[in-house]
C-alpha cells in the first residue's frame, strides 16, 4: 500500500468507526464490536506505516491549500510516529476497558460517548501526522471541541461548569496565544512547514523569538503548564475511560507533542538552547513539577490526585524540550510513550475501583488490595514506572531526562527531578501499599467488593504488561526517537 493511502486510512478509520457507532446506536453489542474493530484496524494501519516508512524519504500529502503557501498537509516524522503508535495502540485497549466500565456503571448516552471518542481519535491522529503548524492548529482545536461532549457527559451542572472551564482555558490560550504565535511565525518566515533544524533561526531579534517561544508554550494550554493547568482537574468529571485515554494520553500528549514539535521543527533545538526565555520556561516547568506534586499529595480524590500527577509529568516533557539539548528531545519523546502507558493504567485502576467498590477517595482504599489484588498490583507497577524505578519502562525516560539536565548544565532542574521522584513515591506508591498492608477501619469493608469487570481487567493487564515490556524491549523505541534529530 502506498504511504499516502495509509495516511488517509489512519484519518478515515476513526471517522468510519464514528459513523458505524451512530448507525448501530440501538444495538449495544454490535456498536461496541464496531469500536473494537475500528481500533484494531487503526492499530494495524499505524503499525504497517511504522514498518514501511522510511524517514529519509518523507512523504507529504497535501489535502487542501486555502491560500498560497499555506496548506493542510500530512507528513510523518519520528516524533509523530511515536505519538500515533501510542494513541493507536491505546485506543482499542481503552475501548475494551470502556465496555466493561460503561456497562457496569450504567452510563447514559453511550452512543454519543463512543462517537465523540472515535472523532477525538481522528483529531489526535491528525495532530500526529500534521506537516505544518496550520494543520496542527486545526486538529488541535478539533480535539478540544470533540472532547467537550465527553467532559460534559454526565450532563449535571458540575459537568457543565467543568466544560466551561475546559473550553475557556483551552480555547483562550490557543486562540489568544498559539494562533498569534503561528501567524507571527508566518509573518516572519513566510512558511509554517515543520522543517528539520527549524525555520526561525536568524529571522528576528532574539528578544522577539524569545517572546514567540513564550507565546507558543503558553498557547499550548493542553500541555497544562502552570498557570494554565486548571482545565485538567476540571476535566476529571468525565467518565474514567475518557480521563484515561484523553486526559492522560491523547489530549495532554497532544499539548506536549505540539511543544516538542515547535521546539524541534520550528525553532530548532540549537536556537532553543540560546534563548533566555527557554531557560525561564524550563524553570517554570520545574516549578510546575514540584507544586503539582505537592498539590497531588493533598488531594484525597483519586482521580484529582492522578490529574495533578499528570500535570507534573507533562512538565517533565516541557522541561525536556526547553533544555535545548539533543538528549532532552529524546528523553521527552520517550517520556510521552512511557508516561502514557503508566498513567493510563493508573486511571484504569481508578475506574475499576469506582465501578467495583464505588470508592473515589484515597483514604477509603485501605485494605482494598485483598479483594482487588490484580487491580492494585497493576496500580503498584504503574506507580513505580512513573517514579522511574526498574524494571519498568519509566526508568529509561527518567534516566535520560536526568542525563539531559546534566548535558544542559542545569543542576537546579536535576534536583527538581530527583525531589519530584521522591514526591511521586509518596503520593502514588503509597496508595497500593496501604491497600495491601493497612487494615480497613470497617471490619465489613470487603463485603460486596469484587475484582473489576472482565473486559476492564484485560485492558489493565495489557497496559501493565506494556510498562514492563518497555523496560526490556526499549530498543525499537530508542531507535525511533534517535531519528528525530538526525
Amino acid at each position, binding site marked *: 500500500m502506498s504511504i499516502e493511502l495509509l495516511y488517509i486510512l489512519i484519518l478515515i478509520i476513526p471517522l468510519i468507526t464514528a459513523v458505524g457507532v451512530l448507525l448501530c446506536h440501538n444495538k449495544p453489542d454490535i456498536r461496541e464490536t464496531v469500536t473494537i474493530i475500528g481500533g484494531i484496524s487503526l492499530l494495524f494501519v499505524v503499525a504497517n506505516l511504522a514498518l514501511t516508512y522510511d524517514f529519509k524519504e518523507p512523504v507529504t500529502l497535501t489535502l*487542501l491549500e*486555502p*491560500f498560497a503557501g*499555506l496548506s493542510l498537509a500530512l507528513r510523518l516524522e519520528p516524533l509523530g510516529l511515536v505519538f500515533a503508535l501510542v494513541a493507536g495502540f491505546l485506543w482499542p485497549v481503552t475501548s475494551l476497558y470502556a465496555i466493561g466500565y460503561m456497562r457496569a456503571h450504567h452510563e447514559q448516552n453511550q452512543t454519543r460517548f463512543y462517537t465523540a471518542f472515535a472523532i477525538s481519535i481522528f483529531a489526535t491522529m491528525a495532530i500526529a501526522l500534521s506537516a505544518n503548524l*496550520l494543520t496542527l*492548529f*486545526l486538529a488541535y*482545536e478539533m480535539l478540544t471541541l470533540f472532547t467537550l461532549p465527553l467532559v*460534559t457527559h454526565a*450532563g449535571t451542572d458540575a459537568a*457543565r461548569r467543568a*466544560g*466551561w472551564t475546559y*473550553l*475557556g482555558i483551552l*480555547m*483562550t490560550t490557543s*486562540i*489568544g*496565544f498559539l*494562533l*498569534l504565535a503561528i*501567524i*507571527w511565525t*508566518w*509573518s516572519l518566515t513566510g512558511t509554517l512547514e515543520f522543517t528539520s533544524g527549524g525555520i526561525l533561526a536568524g529571522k528576528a531579534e532574539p528578544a522577539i523569538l524569545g517572546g514567540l517561544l513564550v507565546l507558543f508554550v503558553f498557547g499550548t494550554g493542553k500541555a497544562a503548564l502552570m498557570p494554565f493547568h486548571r482545565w485538567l482537574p476540571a476535566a476529571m468529571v468525565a467518565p474514567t475511560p475518557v480521563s484515561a485515554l484523553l486526559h492522560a494520553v491523547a489530549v495532554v500528549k497532544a499539548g506536549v507533542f505540539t511543544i516538542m514539535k515547535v521546539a524541534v521543527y520550528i525553532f530548532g533545538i540549537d536556537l532553543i538552547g540560546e534563548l533566555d526565555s527557554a531557560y525561564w520556561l524550563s524553570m517554570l516547568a520545574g516549578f510546575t513539577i514540584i507544586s503539582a506534586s505537592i498539590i497531588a499529595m493533598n488531594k484525597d480524590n483519586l482521580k484529582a490526585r492522578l490529574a495533578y500527577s499528570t500535570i507534573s509529568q507533562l512538565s517533565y516533557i516541557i522541561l525536556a524540550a526547553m533544555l535545548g539539548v539533543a538528549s532532552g528531545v529524546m528523553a521527552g519523546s520517550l517520556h510521552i510513550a512511557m508516561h502514557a502507558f503508566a498513567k493510563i493504567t493508573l486511571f484504569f485502576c481508578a475506574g475499576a475501583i469506582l465501578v467495583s467498590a464505588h470508592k473515589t477517595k484515597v483514604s477509603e482504599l485501605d485494605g482494598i488490595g485483598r479483594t482487588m489484588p490484580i487491580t492494585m498490583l497493576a496500580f503498584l507497577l504503574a506507580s513505580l514506572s512513573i517514579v522511574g524505578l526498574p524494571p519498568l519502562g519509566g526508568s529509561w525516560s527518567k534516566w535520560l531526562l536526568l542525563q539531559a539536565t546534566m548535558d544542559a548544565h542545569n543542576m537546579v532542574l536535576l534536583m527538581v527531578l530527583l525531589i519530584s521522584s521522591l514526591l511521586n513515591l509518596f503520593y502514588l506508591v503509597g496508595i497500593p501499599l496501604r491497600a495491601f498492608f493497612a487494615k480497613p477501619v470497617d471490619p465489613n469493608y470487603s463485603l460486596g467488593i469484587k475484582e473489576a469487570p472482565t473486559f476492564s481487567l484485560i485492558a489493565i493487564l495489557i497496559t501493565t504488561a506494556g510498562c514492563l515490556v518497555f523496560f526490556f524491549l526499549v530498543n525499537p523505541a530508542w531507535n525511533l526517537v534517535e531519528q528525530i534529530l538526525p
Partner: protein
Amino acid sequence: MNLMTHLPVLIVVVPLLSAALCVLFNNRKSAWLITLLASFFCFYASINLIQIVQEVDVIIYSVGGWEAPLGIELRIDALNALMLLVLSGSAVLVSIYALKSVEKEIPVQNQVLFYTALLLVKAGLIGICVTGDAFNIFVFLEISSISTYALISLGHDRRALHASYQYLIMGTIGATFILIGIGFMYVMTGTLNIQDLSQRLPVVADTSAIRAAFAFLTIGVGIKAAMLPLHQWLPNAYAYSPSVVSTFLAATATKVAIYVLIRFQLSLFGIEFSLLQMPFNKILMILGTIGILGGSVSAIYQSNVKRMLAYSSVAQIGYILLAIGLASEPGFTAALLHIFNHALMKGTLFMALGLIAFRFASTELSVMSGIGKTMPLTMAAFLIGGLSLIGVPGTAGFISKWYLVTALLDASLWPLALVILIASVLTLIYIGRVIEVAYFQPAPEGITQQKVPKSMLVALWIFALSNIYFGLYSDISLGISSLAVNQLMGVTP
C-alpha cells in the same frame, strides 16, 4: 443591441422595474417569483461582470450614450464586482428563504409591498455599487434606506416601529451629511464623476472646504456603516426587523456603507490625503478597536440572540475599519476579505435565527433550550456560522482573521493583534452561550422534533456550506480582493 454589453445598467434596472411589477401583479406568489427571478438575474449578471473585470479590465458604461463627465457613468472595477457578488449572492439566498418566512411573519395584506420594498433595497444597494457618480451614490443610498425603514417597521414586535423610526432619523442625518460633503466637493471641482473628482481634488485638497467635505462625508457614511460611536440605531433595527430583512441587512447593508467609505477615502481623496494627512487612519484604528471590544462585550450580555448578533456586527465592522486604518496593502486586502466573509457568516447566523423564529416566534435565548435536538439541521448550520465568526480554521472567518492579524503584525502592531485574538475569545463566549443552551440543556416537556420548510433549510445550508467552501478554497474571494486592492492603490496618486 447586445444584452451583455448593457449588463452594468440592467443589474440596477431589472430589480427596480421588478419592484414596480410586483405592485402591478398584486399577488404574493407572483411577487415572490418576480423577486426570485430578479435576484437570479442579478447574480448571473454579477458573475459575468466579475469575469469581465478579472479577465479584461474595468468596465465603463455611459448611461444613455452620454460620455462622462457630462453624462452619468457606471464604473465597475474589482471592488465593485466584489460588492456585487456579495449583494446578489445573498439576495438570491434571501429570496429563496423569503417565501415561507414572509408567509409566516408578515401580515397577508403587506406581503406584496414587502417584496416590493425588498427589491427596492436591492436595487438601491446594487446601484451604489455600480455607479461612478458621487451624487448617484446619495440617491441610491436613500432609495435603499427609505425602503429599509419600511421593511424594518414590518417586524411583528411593536418595538420594530420605534427602531425603524430611530434608524430613519439617524439615517437621514447621515445621508444629509453625505449630501453636504458632495456639495462641497462639487463647488471646489465642478464635477461629480468619481474618476474626474479624483483627478481634480488633489489640486484643491489643501483647502478648508475640502477638509469640511471630508469630515461630513466620513461622519455621514460612519452613521450608515454603524461605526462606533454612531452605531446606536443598529442593534434595535436588526433585532426587531423580520428575519428576511435582518438577514439581508446584516449580510449587505453595512458592507455597502463601508464600500462607500472606501470609495470616498481611497478613490476620491486618496490614501495620502485621507488616511495619512488627515490622521484618519489613527481615528479609524482607535474606533475600530473600541468597536471590536465594545461590540463583543455588549454581545455577551444580551438575552436576545438576534440582538446579540447585532452587537457582534458592530464588532465585525470594527475589524473592517481597523483593517482599513492600517492603510497598507495587506490591510485593505484583509478588509475586503472580511466584507465578503462576514456576509457569509452573518447571513448563516441570522438565517438560522429566522428558522428558530419561524418555529417559536421568538429569538430569546430562553426558548432555545434543547433546540440542538429538536431542530438539529438548523442548529448545525448555526454552529458552522458561529465557528466561522470565531475564526476556527477551515471556515471563511479564519481566512480573513488570518489576513488581518498578518497585516497588523506587518505593521508591528502586535498589541492590536492580541486584541483581535482576545475578541475571538469573546466571540467564543457569546456563541458558546447559545451552543450550550441549545445542545446541553434539555428541551422543555412536550417539544419534539420541529418541522421547518425545506426551502428555508436549503438557503440556510447553502450559506453555511459556503462558509466552509471559502474557508478551504479562498482563490475566488482572495483573487478579487487583491485585484481590487491593486486597482485601489493604483488609482490613487
